[in-house]
């Protein structure tokens, strides 16, 4: 028998946010000069750390937890420098409104690009260290000794000469009154000395997720709340022409039928099921506009024309690829393509809003509380001090809930039509799949040239397809002369997505072709297609040269030791170079993404010519520093599920300007029976730059399996998903 663990401390935060309208962080109470207090009155040592009298340490986390373990990892980093008792650590979210009011003391809230830990580790560790220094100083002041004679460990401060001790909770009040140390005086620990960070510590947020207590955005309850279901014009760019509210307004529970901007209609009812039932019955006439003519075939034609277009933006160039290819002794050419795909978070998009002319509040599962806040400010028209966003747990994010806040905009537009009434807007799964921000479509023509000795002398990789940034942040594209540098992720000339091979004559360019379907950041973003293109083509080149794919890669990876390190690691683990078990075939892939170096090796078998079993999938990650190896293992395995689902099953097709696939029956996702044995190798090599975790490995799963599939079947599959080629994941 096991006693039920106490209700997780996080649930208090959620429920208080829901009931009282949020945390009162930053509240200055009349007592205690200049001490900023948490809602329960506990003193804030600094923005990152609150310590309660019972020694509970509340670590503030600005990034969003959506399953990737970020709150645990960031808390580990703060706790490491704070020298606190890990069993006393809990976390909470500050609100975006407080961040604005406090001059962005918590920095960026954006939780995407695998940045949760890698771009905030330094300032959160400094926050922990500064709080420790203040607590030690407060104890020293109390004892009238020098702080240099005191040490801190496990939430206890000890005066070394006398052995006197005091716990953090007892000096927190005094510490909160001290001036923060000069950041320059803070010396962070060498990761070699870590005791909490770097360890496979259990997540802080598991228990509520197994008892049904965890509150997701979709579970929120507010007094007097109504529920809304929405339908937006299924043809992107289309508008509402008319709707006949009278047809449904007398249906049970229906309160209002409202336009939402000029593109959508919502039904507001007592319950969501009533709202959805009425919405399904509501006659809506759309003005679909010119995009209604677009189909998957017309989009493919548009992209195909870009493969040989004169004009293209250059992302990577070395030597003269065109001349080298013209003079090559042997040439290999292949055309690949990658489809639209939807994030399909298990929890469909939702947001709850309450509007009055004096206050507008939004409760939303969001990857970027500040982006939600910005959307709220824009739509409500109210000043920042009359707006607030409360972050609620996410049932998956994967890039859909960060840059795109359409559901927040809609929820506020609805709430503005019903002042004072909280309205929870929930998308149906069908709406969620129709109104995605889709993984962009891309085609790619690759041409490789060899000299007479089978050395690779030239490579041209021509991308043709959709730019995310041109749609989402055009200002960044304009600034770069029209180029979307993000489209070269994994094959770029430099930076966190730099190309992992050295080819004497290289040209990687992008003919931008932007269909009307709105693209988005989809876990891994552009590394997904780029890894399929370049890593499968590397195998094609090796095959053409009559060389082993690993040996072939090694020859052009001498200048890329960390790429080579992870590739060698997976090759060794899978048993590359040794015979595979009977009927099994292997494939490899590697890439640098989000400043991590990753590689995968797959071992598969194919039955009946089309039933593909992935037996083993080995993943290696060199992320510089590993904050929680247990969670990294889970992210790697999870990313492989996401990547293999995409490879085998997932395509959003376009017909009549709209997305055809509206639910899991036509847009499938992996089940446990299809799960390979995932072996994760974490091999951080340190250095100045920290790598990301949530996304990088997703991109190497597909090419590793495709390369194994060629070994097994002799077929080069050059378009995703495999279901279109009759292959099935079993």
């Amino acid at each position: 028998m096991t006693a039920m663990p106490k209700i997780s401390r996080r649930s208090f935060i959620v429920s208080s946010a829901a009931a009282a309208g949020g945390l009162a962080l930053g509240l200055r109470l009349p007592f205690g000069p200049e001490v900023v207090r948490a809602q329960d009155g506990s003193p804030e040592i600094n923005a990152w750390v609150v310590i309660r009298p019972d020694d509970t340490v509340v670590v503030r986390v600005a990034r969003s937890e959506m399953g990737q373990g970020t709150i645990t990892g960031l808390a580990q980093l703060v706790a490491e420098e704070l020298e606190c008792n890990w069993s006393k650590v809990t976390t909470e979210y500050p609100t975006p409104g407080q961040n604005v009011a406090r001059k962005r003391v918590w920095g960026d809230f954006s939780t995407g690009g695998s940045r949760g830990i890698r771009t905030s580790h330094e300032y959160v560790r400094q926050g922990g260290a500064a709080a420790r220094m203040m607590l030690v100083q407060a104890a020293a002041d109390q004892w009238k000794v020098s702080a240099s004679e005191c040490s801190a460990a496990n939430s206890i401060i000890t005066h070394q000469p006398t052995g006197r001790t005091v716990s953090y909770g007892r000096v927190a009040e005094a510490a909160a009154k001290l001036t923060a140390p000069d950041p320059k005086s803070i010396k962070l620990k060498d990761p070699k000395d870590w005791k909490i960070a770097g360890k496979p510590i259990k997540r802080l947020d598991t228990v509520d997720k197994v008892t049904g207590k965890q509150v997701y955005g979709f579970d929120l309850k507010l007094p007097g709340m109504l529920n809304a279901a929405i339908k937006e014009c299924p043809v992107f760019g289309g508008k509402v022409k008319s709707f006949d509210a009278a047809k449904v307004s007398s249906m049970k529970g229906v309160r209002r039928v409202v336009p939402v901007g000029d593109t959508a209609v919502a039904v507001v009812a007592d319950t969501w099921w009533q709202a959805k039932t009425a919405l399904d019955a509501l006659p809506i006439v759309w003005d679909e506009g010119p995009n209604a003519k677009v189909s998957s075939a017309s989009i493919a034609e548009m992209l195909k024309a870009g493969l040989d277009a004169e004009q293209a933006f250059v992302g990577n160039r070395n030597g003269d690829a065109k001349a080298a290819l013209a003079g090559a002794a042997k040439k290999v050419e292949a055309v690949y393509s990658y489809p639209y795909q939807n994030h399909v978070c298990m929890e469909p998009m939702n947001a709850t809003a309450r509007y009055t002319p004096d206050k507008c509040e939004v409760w939303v599962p969001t990857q970027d509380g500040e982006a939600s806040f910005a959307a709220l400010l824009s739509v409500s028209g109210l000043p920042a001090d009359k707006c607030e966003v409360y972050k609620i747990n996410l049932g998956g994010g994967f890039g859909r809930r960060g840059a795109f806040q359409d559901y927040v905009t809609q929820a506020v537009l609805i709430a503005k039509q019903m002042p004072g009434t909280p309205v929870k807007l929930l998308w149906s799964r069908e709406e969620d799949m129709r109104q995605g921000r889709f993984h962009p479509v891309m085609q790619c023509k690759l041409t490789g040239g060899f000299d007479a000795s089978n050395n690779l002398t030239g490579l041209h990789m021509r991308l043709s397809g959709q730019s995310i940034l041109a749609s989402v942040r055009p200002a960044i594209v304009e600034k770069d002369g029209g180029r979307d540098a993000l489209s070269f992720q994994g094959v770029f000339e430099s930076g966190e997505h730099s190309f992992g091979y050295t080819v004497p004559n290289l040209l990687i360019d992008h003919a931008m072709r932007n269909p009307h379907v709105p693209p988005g950041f989809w876990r891994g973003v552009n590394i997904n297609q780029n890894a399929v293109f370049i890593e499968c083509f590397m195998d094609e080149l090796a095959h053409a040269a009559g060389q082993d794919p690993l040996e072939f890669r090694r020859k052009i990876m001498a200048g890329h030791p960390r790429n080579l390190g992870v590739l060698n690691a997976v090759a060794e683990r899978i048993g590359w170079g040794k015979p595979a078990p009977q009927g099994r075939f292997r494939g490899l892939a590697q890439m640098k993404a989000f400043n991590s170096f990753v590689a995968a090796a797959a071992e598969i078998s194919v039955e009946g010519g089309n039933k593909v079993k992935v037996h083993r999938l080995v993943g290696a990650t060199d992320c510089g520093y590993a904050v929680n190896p247990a969670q990294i293992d889970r992210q790697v395995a999870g990313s492989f599920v996401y990547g293999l689902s995409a490879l085998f099953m997932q395509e959003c097709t376009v017909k009549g300007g709209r997305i055809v696939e509206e639910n899991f029956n036509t847009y499938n996702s992996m089940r446990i029976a299809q799960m390979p044995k995932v072996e994760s190798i974490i091999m951080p090599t340190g250095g100045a730059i920290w790598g990301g975790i949530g996304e990088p490995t997703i991109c190497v799963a597909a090419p590793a399996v495709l390369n194994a599939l060629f070994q097994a079947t002799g077929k080069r599959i050059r378009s995703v998903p495999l279901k279109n080629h009759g292959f099935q994941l079993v």
Partner: protein
Amino acid sequence: MTSRRNFLIAAGGLAGGMGLTSASGRAHATPEEMQEAVRKVIGTSRVRSGRVKLDLPPLIDNGNSVSLSVAVESPMTPADHVKAIHVFTEKNPLPNVVSVYLGPRAGRANIATRVRIADTQTVTAIAEMSDGTFWSGSMSVVVTLSACLEDGLI
């Protein structure tokens, strides 16, 4: 009183204080170019900070159309009024946003419009008074997502 030089430093300090970096854009204005544009308006005069309240949302998710308002403290009498208000940005493609010319017949020196904000930056409004003095107010705005996209790959 703040000298023009002080004002320039203050504006730069605000932007730096955001702790956000952005690539040096070929096609985009720089804080220096903004100062040059300011100088064209004020000539050899100096700008004092105060009397001008510039308001924009502090966080922006879509910079295509952002509400901006300026209110200048002034009695707006024939003897003492605002003659012009100029709005500048540091990191839009061009530093100038809008210049409006008004006088005592306006009654109040309050204007509003909708602007494009390309990047996380400081926006500044400068009011030219009938006595020949210049006053300014600034605001830092954050365009969500753009910072994290720019400091990495691009």
